[in-house]
């Protein structure tokens, strides 16, 4: 519901990794630790104070890039923004058909009793997996618009999943 600013610094560039959905988790982590080891403020406690500001910004960028790339959804978003800056916000308006379906989903979550909840959770999981596969496909075809629209649709499923979990906990 609010517009997230584009990252000024591209997370793939920050970590020096290829811009693709298919990042290997172990490679990503190893790269992150390697960079942290030299860039973290603790390693540079004695540098001049104006250099320290830049140091802090760099260390923050490395942490934030790792967080973004570790999760496939935010990774996909970063790829979209790389291909077409602003595209995620530009595709936020979804079709009436999708929204009608989302409304039904929200109602199903609100009404779900304990025994129906597990089936519903499974349905949400499967839907999200399918959307993610479609996003991957769109991105391999350099179709940032479709990928971004799918990302916006995924939010409704994610919100439904979170609401359902919350409800089960209560």
């Amino acid at each position, binding site marked *: 519901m609010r517009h997230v600013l584009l990252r000024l610094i591209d997370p793939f560039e920050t970590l020096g990794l290829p811009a693709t959905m298919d990042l290997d988790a172990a490679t990503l982590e190893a790269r992150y630790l390697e960079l942290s080891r030299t860039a*973290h403020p*603790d390693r540079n*406690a004695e540098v001049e104070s104006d250099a320290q500001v830049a140091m802090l910004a760099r260390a923050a*960028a490395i942490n934030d890039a790792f967080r973004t790339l570790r999760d496939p959804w935010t990774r996909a978003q970063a790829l979209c923004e790389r291909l077409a800056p602003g595209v995620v916000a530009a595709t936020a308006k979804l079709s009436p058909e999708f929204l009608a379906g989302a409304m039904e989903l929200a109602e199903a979550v609100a009404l779900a009793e304990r025994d129906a909840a597990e089936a519903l959770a499974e349905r949400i999981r499967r839907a999200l997996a399918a959307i993610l596969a479609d996003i991957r496909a769109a991105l391999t075809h350099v179709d940032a618009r479709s990928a971004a629209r799918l990302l916006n649709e995924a939010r409704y499923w994610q919100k439904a999943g979170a609401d359902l979990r919350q409800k089960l906990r209560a």
Partner: protein
Amino acid sequence: MTEAVSGPVVVGIDLGTTYSLAAVMTRHGPRVLRDQDGEALIPSVVAFEPDGTLRVGRAALARALDLPDRTVHSIKRLIGRAGVEIDAEAKRLPYRVRRGARDLARVVMTVPAYFDDAQRQATKDAATLAGLDCRRIVNEPTAAALAYGIDGSRDGTVLVYDLGGGTFDVSILRIQGGVFRVLATAGDTHLGGDDFDLLLAGDLLAASGATAVVEDSRVKQALRRAAEALKIRLSDAESAQLELDLSTGRTTTVHATRADFERRIATLVERTIDCCRRALSDAELDVGQLDDVVLVGGSSRIPLVRRRVAEFAQRAPRTDVDPDLAIALGAAIQADVLAGGNRALLLLDVVPLSLGIETMGGVVSKLVLRNATIPTSVTEEFSTQVDGQTAVDLNVYQGERERTADCRKLASFKLRGIPPMPAGLPRVAVTFLVDADGVLRVTAVEKRTGVQASIQVVPSFGLTRDEVRSMMSAAIEHARDDMAARELVELRNKGLAMVHGTRRALELADLPPDEVYSVKKAVAHLDRVLAAGAPVDELRAATDALSRLTAQIADDVIGSAVKKALGDTPLPKSVLPGSEPR
């Protein structure tokens, strides 16, 4: 200090609720500092003598029975809660750090992982007031993991369970090639051995049948001490007894069994296990993926605690470092890293609680989520609500809940000088930067014009250094009143925020007239109570009454917002509260 220390020294300090201690790195590894009697644990107690003299540590503890009204225990529970001033003195440890070439002693201080931003700031300020240069704030469980000879040479995932006198903390760390990365932390800043003592003391009092004397603070102190002594014995024995001196000249024998005691504290212990569960789920791990479980803190010696942790973690916890010393030793190791002495280790710590900004309707928009690795920086864009709005209010909150009323306000500032524009047109970019100590800085820029404002977040009661100093001397006279005052201040702040927030929410929300009427009435009442400077009880009754009313309404409003979100127009950008158009 018997061992030689060379090079620039940074001292690690574990400021505990019940005991404090310090350690440094030597050629032979980290060592705790001891006082002239060879004691490493310094009681975190301050005594204010009637003549104005101040005693700390063991000397203060010795006065606790004679001066029950003038000794302060467990001061850490007050840090950053408008009681900042006192702890500065508490931190004056009875040993002097012998100064090297540099004048200011450089230290690393530990805080519970769950300390919020205000409490971290207050700890740093207190160190400064005590003449120390605080180079880093480290989370206690993280420090403990460092000490655990989990020396970075063996990779794995570790859960650190720290149950002390006043606080409970749990952290999950991953160690990879010398990098200690915190994956998640959880805890409770008001849960520890002190609470067990109180429960047991209540039982002892009930058993002695001497309820009439409970108002006598000497008796209360004696009871608490007896309870603690019994509790500690019950960690080794199935039952224990003690002669209790009830000041009336009468003595009585009190006894307790481990089974009864364990039953008494079971729900509190279960709360710690719930925190462990939450930390694991935040770290996206299963219990089976833990390689080690480490117990820290005096209260982790209680057999029930060990049993429950072992059951939960499905493995025997490690206890091979003295749980009293682990945190200070770990702080010394981190101090050594900062002094440049150890280039093999690195700590990557996290933000313990989410940070966000208030948007219209008293909702907190989170920018930094809990357990984000620090340093971190997040920017998001907001806009205005009203045509011609020339200033926006930036109210910074900390906490996991949705509404400002349920989160803690850290700071507020204004971005002024926005040229009048139609609502929604200004683009206010808000940046949260959290540094390696977990301390927050917030910046706001209007992108079309470039006007900007920023703030380094200080505790919400926003004291200047001078104010802190003068409060410090005042505190020496009013050590006890401060605790009551603190509650009053917190309630007043909450009340003011509620009046303000609810009025704004009323303008926005579309409520049936009868609800508007009853809310307005409750707000007006609270406003009157605040203006009259009413006592704590009255204030609490008024805030509670309003909370009950608004909770229901908030549910309705949130419900309708969700409906709106599902309509076919996307919601506009979040808008910030601000001044009326010119």
